[in-house]
């Protein structure tokens, strides 16, 4: 184990994250919190796309469903946040499981299309179901208080996000290192081979969609509190592109990569906040660049440069050239 092994780097990042509220100003704390939320999103998406290989575009919609679910349960049914937050995530997970049903029959491009259509449909519901979602203008979500604890709302929310993110990261690390993670990778690399080894496609695809839906829902609940406001605008295709950028930059099929990628992307996003056009050009270019020239993302560079970055099950694509020819055969079939 080198000094900069994966575990050490993540531990240092965690320590850093713990002390952020002691020196950061309000804006820096906001950005820190946003990074944590995007780490959640990136991990969920990476389990689905990077490990299980399902090319889905519905994550932004699940993020929205989590945000709307959490906030609307508080507004309409006046549930407390601590009930509404997990409930919102569970709703997003249920929707994720629902989407996984067509995914069983569809692969590659067809899955991309059906999930894109679903994402558009979800946004349409946010926009037009006025009586439930308050339409295009959005609505204020009631702010939470951490009353018995001596914490202001931003700091409290930051620590809540941090605890959630750490739990999800550990959970995801363990999932992908387990039998389930190996099954995901088997499904990604060849569905037929996976089936013949006794991997139940329905179960594992549903599981991947469920995990990604649940984490996106958690992220959405935290996001609604971070902004104190929910509107349909934040959950469009551009949101999806940002999330895809985080996992492509970090490294497809790497939990640590998701963390690094999310941090990098959010910081750049904030730097370019002034000009929406510049954000779009930049993230588009980032996607093209990483897919074309650096398929394994940041993590593949770290793996080459630093000892102790051995990431199990990561990088059968791009970084590990030897297994590429076998992949080709399989993927040719899923191309129309």
């Amino acid at each position: 184990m080198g000094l900069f092994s994966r575990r050490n780097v993540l531990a240092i990042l965690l320590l850093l994250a713990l002390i952020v509220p002691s020196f950061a100003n309000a804006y820096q704390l906001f950005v820190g919190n946003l990074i944590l939320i995007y780490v959640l999103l990136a991990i969920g998406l990476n389990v689905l796309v990077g490990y299980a290989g399902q090319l889905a575009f519905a994550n932004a919609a699940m993020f929205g469903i989590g945000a709307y679910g959490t906030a609307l349960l508080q507004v309409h049914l006046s549930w407390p946040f601590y009930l509404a937050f997990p409930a919102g995530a569970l709703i997003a997970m249920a929707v994720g499981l629902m989407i996984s049903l067509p995914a069983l029959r569809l692969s590659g491009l067809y899955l991309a299309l059906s999930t894109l259509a679903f994402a558009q449909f979800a946004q349409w519901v946010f926009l037009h179901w006025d009586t439930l979602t308050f339409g295009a203008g959005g609505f204020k979500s009631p702010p939470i208080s951490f009353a018995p604890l001596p914490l202001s709302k931003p700091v409290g929310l930051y620590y809540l996000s941090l605890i959630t993110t750490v739990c999800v990261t550990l959970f995801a690390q363990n999932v992908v290192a387990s039998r389930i993670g190996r099954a995901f990778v088997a499904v990604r690399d060849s569905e037929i081979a996976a089936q013949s080894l006794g991997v139940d496609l329905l179960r594992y695809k549903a599981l991947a969609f469920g995990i990604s839906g649940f984490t996106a829902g958690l992220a959405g609940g935290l996001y609604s509190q971070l902004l104190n406001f929910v509107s349909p605008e934040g959950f469009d295709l551009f949101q999806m592109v940002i999330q895809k950028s985080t996992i492509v930059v970090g490294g497809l099929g790497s939990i640590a990569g998701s963390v690094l990628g999310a941090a990098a992307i959010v910081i750049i996003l904030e730097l370019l906040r002034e000009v929406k056009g510049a954000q779009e050009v930049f993230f588009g270019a980032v996607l093209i660049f990483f897919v074309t020239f650096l398929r394994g993302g940041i993590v593949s560079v770290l793996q080459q440069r630093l000892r102790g970055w051995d990431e199990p099950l990561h990088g059968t694509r791009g970084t590990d050239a030897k297994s590429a020819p076998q992949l080709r055969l399989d993927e040719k079939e899923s191309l129309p």
Partner: protein
Amino acid sequence: MLLFSYLLLGGLTSGVLYALVALGLVVVNKSTGIVNFAQGELFMFCGFLAWTVHVQFGLAYPLAFLAAIAGGFLLGVVTDRVAFRSLAKTDVVGLVLATVGLGFVLRGTARMIWGGKGDYLSFPPITSPEPVMIGTIMIIPQQMAALAGALVIMLAFAAFFKFTRAGKIMRATADNAKASTLVGISIQNVYTLAFGTGAAIAGAAAVLAAPLSLLYPDMGFAFFIKGFAAAVLGGLNSLSGAVVGGLLVGIVESMAGGYIHSNMMEVAPFLLIMLVLIVCPTGILSLYKARDV
């Protein structure tokens, strides 16, 4: 009757436009196996190009039309050379992500050049905007112009594939890439040509659509997803299927908007896509599997 004919004509008009977008997608997919997720943005970009030529430089409409087609072809060729050439060997995930990325580069560029969010540029109509009544049927000349234009483009396109050398080369490659290499066809050039042709059709479609739909940087995605749906309905590999699919999407959208609720217009195509993909993906899949064997 009045409402029905109005909806049908409106649906047909948007249908042929979706069909043109779908044709661009199918041409690229047939010869390269890539679905270009940036097709909608190419469409939007060409529309803005034509606007610049027609409105800002004050050149005639046919010139703007040619400029959009030429601009589209050039954009297609450049994107192929810059991005897709090195991508030809990666998997579906990589290809989709890269073309989505390309789409956003174009969208952001258009937003920075031609105005901010919510800015709609109007494109002057080629015909008088007054509707004409024939019996109980109302006809909007601009729609007729778009329909006729689209028909001409489709015919020209069919002729291109049937009679020209470049068209024959592309068909040969789509049929059997290895065999066409053996007879001396450069696959790389065919790919470039396919991207160029696909984007050129998008350009032509954009000039026809612009007077009806106005121009805004986010317009591309709506046209893309409906064109994609049309292409999938037609089997993603068939040119005539793309046209039928486009008309179907356009008419369903228009009828849903007229008879159910105007809000339904935006969402009907997506429900149609999900329904088709969930209920009978085997029908669509079996079409292309049959080709592969």
